């Protein structure tokens, strides 16, 4: 009984953490695109990274929340009403909105050749700060007993 339960928890944790790594990887690609767009020499490079980021971001963020909520429901020590879990969900919504807007902007530049959004670098920094605060929340679990 215990073995089955632990196996379930471990597998869910692996899937949740792997999804989070995928989200951060997509954010890394978004940042690389923004940095590459700052120089004419690398602007074509940036656009070749965009399709991969546009796929990884929605997959990573969707699976991270699905497996995260599943973990919270699976283990009796967690509850969806815990402060740190509510904070993580709010941060996930904020991150999702920023990442979604960045991905859509880069897709537009790739498909129609529109000029890069000048606020992209600021949005990238906001996304990185959001993901960092989310990681701190996951590790420190403030308020958990």
């Amino acid at each position, binding site marked *: 009984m*215990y073995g089955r339960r*632990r196996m379930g*928890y*471990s*597998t869910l*944790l*692996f899937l949740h*953490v*792997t999804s*989070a*790594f995928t989200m*951060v*990887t997509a*954010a*890394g*690609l978004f940042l*690389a695109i923004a940095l*590459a767009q700052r120089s004419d*020499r*690398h602007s*074509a*490079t940036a656009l*070749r*990274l965009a399709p*991969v980021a546009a796929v990884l971001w929605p997959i990573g963020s969707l699976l991270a929340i699905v497996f995260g909520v599943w973990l919270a429901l699976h*283990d009796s*020590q*967690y509850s969806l009403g815990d402060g740190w879990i509510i904070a993580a969900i709010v941060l996930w919504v904020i991150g999702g909105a920023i990442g979604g807007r960045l991905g859509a902007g880069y897709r537009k530049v790739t498909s129609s050749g529109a000029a890069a959004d000048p606020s992209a670098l600021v949005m990238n920094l906001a996304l990185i700060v959001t993901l*960092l605060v989310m*990681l*701190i929340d996951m*590790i*420190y*679990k403030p308020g*958990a*007993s």
Partner: protein
Amino acid sequence: MTVLLIRPDSWNLPLLLHVGGAMALVASVTVAAVALLQGWRASGPAAASLKRFGARTLLYAAIPSYFVMRIAAQWVLSKEGLDNSNAAWIGDGFLAADAGFVLLVIAAIVANLAVRRDPESGLGKLAKVGAGLSVVLIALYVFAVWAMTTKPT
């Protein structure tokens, strides 16, 4: 039997640096792999630009991230009193980190050598080796995440 879900507070900072460093490492190796693989498919100035971008990402982002992840890993082990542990998952972690570091250094060297030798052309054999090694590294890191989260015995 209770699974320990809440750690002592003193473990949190090294764990944050370990996981954060690992995330930055995976992200930067993936950015480099995507740039090099796209450069493999491209031609002309775009291929040269992608080759340079991938090589520089390995050198200036992936290697520093590796050191943050690895030094923090040792710090976490020390905090948890596991320095001399023979647990399989710790061995798997060392394997992925240390063997991965050798592959990472080789990938960074060959990719940057390719840029230095021929900055204006496509990937060439050396940078293709760098691209292949980057993909192998991503697979190795997925294995490491599996070992760290499931802690197989």
